[in-house]
């Protein structure tokens, strides 16, 4: 047991810190700090900077021009990036599709699509969820029927994050309706400029446009856009879900969020003293900070297991549940800290100068963020789904 970083790891940490200090555009960092929505251009700028440095595809193998970082390196980057208010890397191409293509795609697909992810030619989004299916991917209904060299796709996807920016979507579609639910599913890449694809915004409860519905009406998709074998899409989807499940605890986000809470609470007045000195508020902050410290260590333990080749299954579910609870608690504290100024509808306000809210605490849209982040325990497999997984695995004698 040794909780300290090795000299190599410390050197890497310094390198990351220096890079962020020198290269992260200040206007972007300021938006991240205030939880203001980033524009597409903001995200593309930051991706390009990372790509220049060779740090965009952090978990890709060197063979595919990735950084091939160790789990600890990725943890170090995540922590430093959150601390510096760097935007998160948009994961759809880099963390989700990339690994699937590398493992199951054809040489042609790899050669064509992977460089376009790195250089920003394509912006991918994910077509998994469907209305009424909840977290149950196996019950999906979007159909793809073979017609010569094409599939004809009909159906609807939902909760498609940042679909409004994407030109490509990777989808799970049903190619064989006659077999059991989890079979007969294929993994298809669809150009969103194809006729019959329609993106409709979903406005979330905090007023933000972040997710979308994507409708497919007789959309013709070339068969070479099928990844792997027909009807084996479920296997690829499961692989992707496993791969997606690192960093689920969101330790870096929580650490940054807690810093913000403390900053606000130092500035906020409570009965003539800084709010941070109020014992009730301080107790709330301390308890979540203590929880977070423990979770950060749990996170490192799991990373170190993953580095040793163990697949994070159960532990990933545990991290996702606890991580979402902690982040949501921090959002709640930020909202409390701000007091009456949490009430203005801030996202709209930033658009027109006339509507600008003179928030003396410079806190950003904390209440909107509080509501928006209720999604953390709902999307990507709700906490109820995760608890079910944990119970099932451990009760059957697993852990």
């Amino acid at each position, binding site marked *: 047991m040794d909780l300290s970083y090795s000299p190599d790891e410390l050197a890497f940490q310094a390198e990351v810190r220096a890079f962020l200090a020198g290269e992260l555009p200040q206007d972007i960092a300021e938006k991240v700090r205030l939880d203001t929505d980033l524009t597409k251009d903001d995200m593309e700028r930051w991706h390009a900077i990372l790509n220049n440095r060779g740090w965009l595809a952090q978990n890709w193998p060197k063979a595919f021009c990735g950084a091939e970082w160790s789990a600890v390196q990725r943890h170090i980057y995540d922590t430093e990036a959150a601390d510096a208010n760097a935007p998160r890397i948009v994961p759809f191409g880099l963390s989700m599709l990339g690994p699937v293509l590398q493992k199951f795609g054809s040489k042609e697909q790899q050669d064509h699509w992977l460089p376009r992810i790195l250089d920003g030619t394509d912006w991918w989004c994910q077509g998994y969820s469907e209305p009424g299916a909840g977290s149950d991917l196996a019950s999906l209904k979007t159909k793809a029927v073979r017609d010569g060299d094409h599939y004809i796709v009909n159906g609807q996807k939902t909760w498609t994050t940042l679909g409004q920016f994407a030109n490509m979507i990777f989808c799970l579609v049903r190619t064989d309706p006659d077999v059991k639910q989890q079979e007969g599913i294929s993994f298809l890449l669809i150009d969103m400029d194809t006729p019959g694809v329609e993106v409709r915004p979903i406005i979330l409860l905090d007023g933000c446009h972040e997710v979308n519905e994507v409708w497919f009406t007789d959309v013709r998709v070339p068969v070479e856009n099928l990844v792997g074998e027909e009807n084996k899409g479920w296997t690829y989807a499961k692989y992707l879900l496993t791969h997606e499940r690192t960093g689920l605890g969101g330790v870096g986000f929580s650490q940054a969020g807690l810093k913000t809470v403390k900053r606000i609470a130092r500035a906020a007045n409570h009965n003539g003293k800084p709010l941070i000195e109020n014992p009730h508020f301080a107790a709330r902050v301390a308890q979540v900070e203590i929880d977070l410290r423990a979770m950060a260590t749990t996170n490192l333990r799991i990373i170190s297991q993953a580095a040793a080749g163990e697949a994070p299954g159960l532990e990933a579910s545990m991290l996702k549940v606890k991580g979402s609870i902690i982040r949501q608690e921090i959002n709640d504290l930020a909202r409390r800290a701000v007091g009456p100024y949490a009430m203005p509808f801030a996202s709209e306000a930033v658009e027109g100068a006339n509507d600008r809210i003179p928030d003396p605490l410079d806190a950003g849209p904390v209440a909107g963020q509080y*509501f928006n982040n209720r999604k953390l325990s*709902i999307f990507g497999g709700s906490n109820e789904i995760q*608890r079910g997984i944990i119970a099932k695995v451990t009760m059957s004698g697993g852990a």
Partner: protein
Amino acid sequence: MDFNLTEERQMLQDTLRRYLREQYGTARRNEILASDTGFSADIWTELADLGILGALFAEDHGGFGGAGFDIAVVFEELGRAGVVEPVLDSALMGGRLLAAAGKTDLVELVIGGSLHLAVAHGEPDSRYDLDHVNTTVSDNKLTGRKAVVMNAEAADHLIVSAKNGGSIALYLVDKGAQGLDIQGYPLLAGGRAAEVTLDNTPGAPLGLTLADYEAANRLALIAQCAEALGAMETATALTKDYLMTRKQFGRPIGTFQALAHRMSDLLIELEQARSAVINAAGYADGKDADLHLSASKNLIGRIGRLVAEEAIQMHGGIAMTQEYELAHIAKRIVMADHRFGDTDYHLERFIALSAA
């Protein structure tokens, strides 16, 4: 001891509930939310015509109610429907302050729905403290800044607090008064507020002190607790319906034990919230009024958060969309914690008053 509503209050409740059910559905309300003014003049007039505004005032002042339970009944129904019109600030607080000042003529206009008010007391760094006022007055001219003033843009008059020597006094400021600047913005949970600055702005002294403001604040606490209770009732009802409608594996998801037990806990806490509102309304005149009000606001704050979060979580994705009824209701519940002192503020006050 008697836990039944009087016949009059039962009628008031029935009338208001029926009216809002018919006239204030999700679609209508979402239109109002998206409007420039943030409220509907028609709804306001109709509330006045139905006698809802009058129920907030005693007979002496031209109303036919005004007691704690009258206020609780009205605001529970407003909360149930997620009403965003500023009944609390404009009619209840503004109107009752004018009533306390003996401005019966103006109160009549409030009850009739033709006079709109705003109460400008809090300041940028006062948070929830009632005695923290830096706005100054000299020769009946006010100078200072007031924070998050509800309904300021639409108000015909603002009631503004200022430090007059060592004590706090209230002034009536006209909409068009000189040196008055109103920077309005929408609120996350509906309606509009504004930052109000006064620069040597003339105001008419109302003869009211901080104690009068505190009395109005007690009524606001009853109203806010009751409104949150009504909203929680809707959140709970929507969740119950959803759990019995939405199916997984061929069964309504509400028949699965984990969700069923969590739903039971919400219902238990909802009864606690209901009792807290009864305590707030029933004890608001007694000697321990502040103790009871702080207890109730603290409890409503804690349970409100639980109900809002659990209702969203048990719904899943649908509750995350702006157009779904629960989204608005959940925002009303949580944002209630940011008015008139939050959960911790009232916890602390309860501790202080208990020790006293």
